[in-house]
């Protein structure tokens, strides 16, 4: 199939940026969205035009590196799917596709479609861990975890830290990301001891980074490639409000 692409090009953080149009020709429905971009980039290089910069790595939906706004939807039209796992069979010949970077104050554009998401790392550094040193752990089976709790913790822990939740939110809120980590750890006995301090510190860092608040639109859940449930945001709010420190 043949497609028309409208792609955000921006040379560097201080460049104003603009939308450029490109043709994507002879695209196979079996290609992933990123492989389609590879084809376009090969063509650009052959014409001595600089290829489109976009972030990607594992290309199997788990590393969380890819970050494309496709026709206004973070990661594109398929539910529960990262852009790297989106295949071209979901588009049709003649389609025009608009591709933009994540847009949020806390995610400044580095170049073209690549943004700086280091704010997420700083939020985890603020408390998204269990304070245990190597070597001090007791035998794993001395710590029992009810199966339903372990499964729920895993649902939250499945977050890949891609930032689609932020990109899709009109407030650029990172609540789903933060709630996923807060919930993953507080649901388990290992993480419960520090849960009050953790939620306070992580939320404070989130605010400091310039992410907005949640106004319950649930766009984040709709685009999350791991379909993390917004109920975790409610859980985090509750933990935050009841935390004593």
């Amino acid at each position, binding site marked *: 199939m043949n497609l028309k692409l409208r792609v955000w090009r921006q040379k560097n953080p201080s460049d104003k940026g603009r939308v450029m149009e490109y043709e994507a020709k002879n695209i196979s429905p079996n290609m992933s969205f990123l492989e389609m971009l590879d084809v376009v980039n090969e063509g650009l290089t052959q014409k001595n035009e600089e290829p489109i910069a976009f972030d990607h790595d594992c290309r199997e939906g788990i590393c969380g590196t890819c970050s494309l706004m496709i026709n206004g939807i973070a990661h594109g039209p398929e539910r529960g799917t990262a852009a790297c796992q*989106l295949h071209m069979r979901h588009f049709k010949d003649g389609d025009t596709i608009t591709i933009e970077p994540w847009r949020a104050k806390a995610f400044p554009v580095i170049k073209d479609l690549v943004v700086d998401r280091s704010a997420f790392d700083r939020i985890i550094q603020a408390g998204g861990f269990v304070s245990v040193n190597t070597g001090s752990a007791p035998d794993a089976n001395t710590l029992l975890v009810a199966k339903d709790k372990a499964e729920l913790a895993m649902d939250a822990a499945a977050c890949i830290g891609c930032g689609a939740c932020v990109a899709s939110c009109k407030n650029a809120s990172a609540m789903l990301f933060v709630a996923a980590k807060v919930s993953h750890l507080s649901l388990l006995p290992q993480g419960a001891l520090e849960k009050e301090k953790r939620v306070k510190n992580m939320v404070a860092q989130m605010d400091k980074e310039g992410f907005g608040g949640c106004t319950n639109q649930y766009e984040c859940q709709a685009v999350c490639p791991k379909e993390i449930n917004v109920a975790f945001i409610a859980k985090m709010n509750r933990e935050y409000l009841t935390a004593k420190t």
Partner: protein
Amino acid sequence: MAEKWDKHRFEMRLVNPSNKRKFEVIVVGTGLAGASAAASLAELGYQVKVFCFQDSPRRAHSISAQGGINAAKNYPNDGDGVWRLFYDTIKGGDFRSREANVYRLAQVSNFIIDQCVAQGVPFAREYGGYLTNRSFGGAQVSRTFYARGQTGQQVLLGAYQALCRQIAGGNIKMYSRTEMLDLVLVNGHAKGIVVRDLVTGKISSHAADAVVLATGGYANVFYLSTNAIGCNVTATYRAYKKGALFANPCFTQIHPTCIPVTGDHQSKLTLMSESLRNDGRIWVPKKKEDRRAPAEIPENERDYFLERKYPSFGNLAPRDIASRSVKEVCDEGRGVGPSTGLRAGESGRGVYLDFSEAIQRLGAAALRERYGNLFDMYGKITGENPYKAPMRIYPAAHYTMGGLWVDYNLMSNIPGLHVIGEANFSDHGANRLGASALMQGLADGYFILPYTLSHYFAATAKSKPGADSPEFKKAEVDAAERVKRLLSIKGKRTVTSFHKELGDLVWEHCGMARNAAGLKKALERIPALREEFWKNVNVLGENEALNPALERAGRVADFMEFAELLCQDALHREESCGGHFREEYHTPDGEAQRNDEKFSYVAAWEFQGDGKSPALHKEPLTFENVQLAQRSYK
């Protein structure tokens, strides 16, 4: 052997707590090995600088590991123990690894599970709250711990969170989007690295008391592999060019269960976890060129070839053996799936991985709980529903057992240069068993390197040169010149086209099956391709900004040199063992035929200069505790 590690730990020297903060360590790579090592070293009190080329340390490729992590806990009471895990690993590696290293790995495996659980890794559990296990290839016990099909992600996040805690505590300085371009030696010791900031293009030096490489494997030399696009050999290859020995490069692992190639656009291959072989049955039609839909092929016209050939291990035969069997049935013309007519020897190739019996026995819901995300991933990529029709799978390059040579302390022959995880060669011999990569990465990082690195510091006179010393300045100039050269060629071909051509060449002649004639041909063609690369590659853009094409060009340039070393090692090893299958050496029934008399050694190659053949050093492998035998899984 059983006491060796305990005894060694006692004999190693220590650094007293107040002196630890005077030592600085550089860790390159933030996968399981790098993140766990960095966190553990920082907890001890060392000053640690950590580098990764990804935008965040949480994204290293360990994250893609699906099925699980092994340990000798024996929770299922099925007869497991340290000795059995040790034996399975030695045998699985086709007797080409060191006994003492592997035994130590089995010994510390149990602590890893304890550590992960304490960090909050949500491993699968039974209703009573206890941890549960499943089985993996090459073992007859269930010793694999797992978190759905995302075990790598969960244990990596555990290590990443430990790393983050140390960053917050000021003990680790983290450099993301920063790529190592060279290793720097001062007076023969590894004392630092030269890096390029991938956002600004700035090249700079970092000095330390020791350097740890945790930079993963080189499976992307094949172009198509299950590795992430960014995985590369640059760090380890640069160290090799500075004198570190590269051991057993020809020991590469081809994983049997990956989603088949669909066309020329393919940029990577996706693994379907080995754990699927617990419930999935592998088969092809008995007849050649049987084009009927799988459901129309009656039971008696199917060949469950792994169950037929290896009745006691069945579908859980080790990876190398399963991969070769899949190739064999496809070579016979019994492969299934559409023909793409693309890559040599790979057109329309696949076998069925069929869950219909398990769905009947356990119900679709039970399978969804065990493998839900894998089934979803398969559905997304192929557009087919694996709950309804069998998956189609084919082997793909996945992991590399070879790597930089290290001693029992995980130190290379360059004093101070330590190498951990997939980047070293140490524990898997000629073939790695499933769920053992996570185990080894974390064993090295959490429980081995923190002791052995302390010993290096205590036993060596302290000297940390400044990052402005001449050795660093020279390495910086070399790195900058190389970047400049890549940008100035302005030829006619893209980096990807060169990488693809190299990958096709290496896959064809040094992939699942190798022979002397093919390897010689590859060794002729690689230098010519490399020459063309340096004359005709087109890298656009500039150095002073984010430039993914430039990053890739540097990595492919190193693969161009490394591929030659890989083929050379494969040519010299005139035997078949594990993942290294030389067509000239097989038993009458087609199994790998080792030659213990001549090749029971680690082949460690030393760089002699560009355009010169590397020198071979042999480390003999002696087996005092296990009997060398032909591997049998029948």
